[in-house]
């Protein structure tokens, strides 16, 4: 049995309803434990104080913001190559989740940056790239909303996703170049995603990253199921001869 079995909407819905309770449960446990452990079970950082604890929201959401776009890229490619509707609908379903993750990452970053850097916002390459990613998400969602014919919408948004990915990566490096050109790297030690974190902080962080990933998968399953049912309802109405 290959993964293409689930290109059939019925099979996909069956799988989705079967695994969703487990996904939701696992996601809530991982996020719950990770956050509670992170907020109450870890010591304050000796330089950053208790503000360091926002990392348990900031890093996982940033991670998922990028991976959501990556997932949209993969599903868009599958739609363009193999024309499986579930794939296109999954890309559509992932976009709003991705934009919320990007927003969470930006807002938590700003909340952390205010006491730490003394500013809500700095035109640092990382921050700027995330803002640009946010704009790409907005354009993608707006294009989905604007086109009435579902297949054309899937086609055009898929191609926009491919082209947008290239330009998003390009912007990422252009922005790095631009800020170095403006002044030397600002005091931005954001690079805590790797193992520059001490173990006490790392394990709850890892747990909440897993939790956010599970939450993302559960949300995409849920939203894709909704999109499939909307599509099915429209088809039924059309068959009943009442149009839309």
């Amino acid at each position, binding site marked *: 049995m290959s993964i293409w079995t689930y290109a059939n909407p019925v099979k996909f819905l069956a799988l989705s309803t079967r695994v969703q309770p487990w996904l939701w449960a696992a996601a809530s446990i991982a996020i719950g434990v990770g956050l509670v452990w992170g907020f109450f079970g870890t010591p304050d950082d000796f330089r950053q104080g208790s503000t360091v604890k926002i990392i348990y929201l900031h890093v996982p959401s940033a991670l998922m913001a990028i991976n959501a776009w990556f997932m949209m890229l993969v599903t868009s490619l599958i739609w363009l190559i193999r024309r499986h509707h579930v794939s296109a609908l999954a890309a559509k379903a992932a976009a709003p989740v991705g934009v919320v993750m990007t927003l969470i990452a930006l807002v938590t970053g700003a909340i952390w940056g205010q006491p730490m850097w003394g500013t809500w916002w700095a035109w640092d390459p990382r921050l700027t790239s995330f803002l*640009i990613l946010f*704009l*790409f998400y*907005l*354009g993608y969602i*707006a*294009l989905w909303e*604007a*086109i009435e014919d579902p297949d*054309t919408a899937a*086609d*055009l948004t898929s*191609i*926009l996703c*491919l*082209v*947008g990915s290239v*330009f998003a990566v*390009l*912007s990422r490096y*252009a*922005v790095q*170049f*631009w800020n170095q*050109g403006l002044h030397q790297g600002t005091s931005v030690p954001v690079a805590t995603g790797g193992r520059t974190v001490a173990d006490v902080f790392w394990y709850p962080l890892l747990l909440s990253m897993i939790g956010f990933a599970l939450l993302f998968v559960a949300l995409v399953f849920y939203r894709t199921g909704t999109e499939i049912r909307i599509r099915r309802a429209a088809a039924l109405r059309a068959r009943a001869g009442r149009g839309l």
Partner: protein
Amino acid sequence: MTALLIRDLRLAMRAGGGFGLALAFFLIVVVLIPFSVGPEASLLSVIAPGVLWLGALLSCLLSLDRLLAIDFEDGTLDVLATAPLPLEAALSIKALAHWLTTGLPLVLAAPVLGVLLNLPGQGYLWLVASLALGTPALSVIGTFGAALTVGIKRGGLLLSLLVLPLYIPTLIFGAEVARRGAQGTDATTPLLMLAGITLATIALLPFASASVLRRGLR
């Protein structure tokens, strides 16, 4: 191909205001800047390269929605899509016509507007060079955006939302060249990057635009 180019150029010249509109918009944006930030010459000369680049970019954006929309309405696009000429080539020609009627006048007008903004003397050459290299990319990217939104009613705002993020790399490198040129520092690296972006978009994006347009017209 030449016939299509000449047709597009003629239409742009004659179709009442399309040709000069972008230039006038560029002029107005540049004139509004001192009103919004104050008339100090030193401040203006610092921000001049960026303002001129941003103004040129917005003027380019302004004329994008008529790039394909008029041809879509009167059915010319359907003819083009079924013509023996590949749609990729037709769209490249359309982008070229857009650049000749919008980008090139902006490049030529930029030094004049640079005087208004007190651009330092050594910056003019770099400003013109960066705009001449960068505006073709703006036209080609804009054609892609226009192809995406061609069938959508009231797609103008959506077009801006889609195209402006794609303009970011071009703007960064282009404005960087102009800024470094104005400061008198070495601007070779961003100039080469800008040229790279322009060449890559010219080479690759028409395929994306044509593929989008074929699906949109279907």
